[in-house]
C-alpha cells in the first residue's frame, strides 16, 4: 500500500492504427520507449492521433499492427479487463460515477480486484489526502457537490487507487480554469515526484507539455512521430519546420522558463550603475528574470538567497549566452528544418 511501488517501462514497437474505411492511418508506425517513472507527453494537432495512441495502450482501441509492451509484457497477451485494472485512467470529462460517494468512486478498482473493505477504505482516504482533499470533509459527498477542480482531484485519486505502475491521462486539466489548472499541474508534479509512476499524458497545450513532460512526443497529421525528446532538447533544436512551428516562435523564452536562477552559473558583480538593479530569488525562472530586467529597464539583476546574502548576478548578455550554449548544434529553426527535410528525403 505504500505509494510508488513500481513504475513500468512502456515500449511502442512499430505501432499502427488504421480505422476501416479510412485511407490514412490514425497512428502510423509509432515507435518510442518511455522509461519507467517518467511523464511522457503526447502532443500534436487534432488528427495527430495522440488520444488514439494513448487508448491503444489500455486496448480501449484495438491496434492494427505492431505491439506495445509494459515492462516487457505485450498488452496483447493480457485480458483487456485485467490490463485496464492495472492502468490508471484519467479523462478530461473526469467521468466520476454520479451515484457513488467520493470515497466509493476512489475505491472502484480496489473493489474490483478484491481488496478487503478495511484496506480499500484506508487507501481511499489516504489518496484523498494525497490529492489535497480532506477525507473527513469530502469522503461522503457526491460528485455533484464538488467543483470541477475538486472533481478532477478525485479523478486522479481514483486512477491511482490500486497503485498502477502506469497512468494514462487524456487532457486531464483541459476543461479546468487556468488558475486551478496551474495549481493542479503543480500538485500533480509534486505527487509524481513522490509516487514515480510512468505517465502517458495527452494534451494539445504546448506550455502544459513543456511543464509536465520529462519527454515530449510530437505527432503530426496522420499519426506520425515528428520528434521525441526532452522539452529542453525540442525547444533548443526542433527537428523540422513543423515542430518549430508547433512549439512556437517564442521557444527561446519557453526554454528560459525551464531553468531557474539557482541552476545556472551566475556572475560576479558587473560594472555599471548599481542602483535600480532588480532582485530575484534562486527559484525564479530565467524567463521571469529576463522579463524583470526588461520591465525594470536594467541590464543586470541581483540574485539574493532567502537569508539575504547575494548569490550572484545575471545580465542580459549572460541570458543570451545561456540560450546559445544550450542550443547544441543550431538554434536556427529553418536551418534545422532543412537538415531534417534532407534527412527525410535521404530516408525515402
Amino acid at each position, binding site marked *: 500500500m505504500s505509494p510508488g511501488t513500481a513504475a513500468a517501462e512502456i515500449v511502442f514497437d512499430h505501432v499502427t492504427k488504421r480505422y476501416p474505411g479510412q485511407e490514412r492511418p490514425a497512428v502510423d508506425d509509432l515507435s518510442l520507449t518511455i522509461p519507467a517513472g517518467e511523464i511522457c507527453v503526447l502532443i500534436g494537432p487534432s488528427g495527430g492521433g495522440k488520444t488514439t495512441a494513448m487508448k491503444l495502450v489500455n486496448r480501449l482501441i484495438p491496434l492494427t499492427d505492431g505491439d506495445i509492451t509494459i515492462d516487457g509484457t505485450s498488452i496483447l497477451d493480457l485480458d483487456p479487463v485485467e490490463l485496464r485494472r492495472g492502468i490508471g485512467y484519467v479523462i478530461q470529462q473526469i467521468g466520476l460515477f454520479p*451515484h457513488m460517494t467520493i470515497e466509493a468512486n476512489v475505491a472502484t*478498482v480496489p473493489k474490483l480486484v478484491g481488496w478487503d473493505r478495511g484496506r480499500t477504505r484506508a487507501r481511499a482516504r489516504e489518496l484523498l489526502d494525497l490529492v489535497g482533499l480532506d477525507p473527513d470533509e469530502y469522503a461522503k459527498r457526491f460528485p455533484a457537490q464538488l467543483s470541477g477542480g475538486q472533481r478532477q482531484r478525485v479523478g486522479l485519486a481514483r486512477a491511482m487507487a490500486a497503485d498502477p505502475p502506469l497512468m494514462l491521462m487524456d487532457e486531464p486539466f483541459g476543461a479546468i480554469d487556468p488558475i486551478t489548472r496551474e495549481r493542479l499541474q503543480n500538485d500533480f508534479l509534486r505527487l509524481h515526484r513522490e509516487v514515480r509512476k510512468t505517465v502517458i499524458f495527452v494534451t494539445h497545450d504546448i506550455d502544459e507539455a513543456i511543464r509536465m513532460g520529462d519527454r515530449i512526443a510530437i505527432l503530426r497529421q496522420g499519426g506520425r512521430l515528428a520528434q521525441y525528446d526532452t522539452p529542453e532538447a525540442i525547444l533548443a533544436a526542433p527537428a523540422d519546420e513543423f515542430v518549430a512551428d508547433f512549439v512556437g516562435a517564442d521557444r527561446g523564452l519557453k526554454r528560459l522558463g525551464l531553468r531557474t536562477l539557482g541552476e545556472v552559473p551566475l556572475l560576479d558583480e558587473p560594472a555599471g550603475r548599481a542602483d535600480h538593479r532588480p532582485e530575484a530569488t534562486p527559484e525564479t525562472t530565467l524567463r521571469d528574470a529576463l522579463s524583470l530586467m526588461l520591465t525594470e529597464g536594467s541590464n543586470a539583476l541581483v540574485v539574493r538567497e532567502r537569508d539575504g546574502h547575494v548569490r550572484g548576478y545575471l545580465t542580459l548578455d549572460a541570458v543570451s549566452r545561456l540560450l546559445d550554449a544550450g542550443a547544441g548544434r543550431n538554434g536556427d529553426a529553418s536551418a534545422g528544418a532543412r537538415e531534417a527535410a534532407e534527412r527525410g528525403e535521404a530516408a525515402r
Partner: protein
Amino acid sequence: MSGALALAPAQAGPVIPDFGRGDECIRTNGNFCFNWFVDNFDERFLPRLGEHVKMTAIAIAIGFVIAFAAALLAHRHPRFELPFANLSSLFYTIPSIAFFQIMVPITGIGWTSIIIALVSYTLLILFRNILTGLREVPDEVKEAAEGMGLTRRQTLVRVELPLAVPAIMAGVRVATVTTISLATIAAFITPLGLGAPIFNAIQSGANTEFVAASLLAIALALLADAVIVLAQRAVSPWARARRRA
C-alpha cells in the same frame, strides 16, 4: 360523477332498499353519505380495494419484468427497439373496454384476462423510460468505467442501472397511476376491484357508492404515487445532491 347522477332513476323514495340505517341522507340519495360509507366500508369497499391493489401490483410487476428485459435487450442490440416499441404502442392504442372484452373468449372471465390487459398498457411507458434511463448515462461515465476495467456486465449493474433509477421510477409512477385508473374498467367483465362498486352504482343510481369508490381509487393513486417518489429518493439520494454554496 355527473354521469352517474344523470343515470339515477327519477322516482322519489328509497332507491336502495336496505342499506343499513336508512338515515335522511341515504333516503334522499345524497351525493355522499359519510355514515353509510363508514358502515359499509368493511363489507363493500375494503375487499374491492384489496383486489384493486392486488391487480395493480401484479400488473406492474409483470409489466416491469417484461419491459425491463426488453429494454436491456434493446440497450445492447438497438435493432430490437423498434419492434418492441411498435408492439407496445399498438397495445396502448386499443380501447380499454374493448381490450378487456377481447380477452374474455381467450382467457375467460377472471383475473387472467384482467392482468393481461393491464400489463399490456404498462409496457409502453415502462419500456421507454427504462431504455431512456440507460441511454442517458453520460458517455464519459461509461468510458471511465470501461477504462478502469469494469466488464460490460459490471458497467450495467454498477453504473448504468443505478444511474437509470430516476428515469425508471418516473416510468413506474406513471404506469402505476394509469393502471390504478384503468383497473376500474376491469369490473366491466367481472366484479373485481373498485370498478365493481362503480359499475354497481351506475346500475342502481346509488350516489354515495359511486362517489366513495371513485374517491378511493383516486386516493389509492395519489398514495401509490407518493410511496414511489419516496422510494426513489431513498434509493437514489445522489439525484438530489447539489453543490453546497
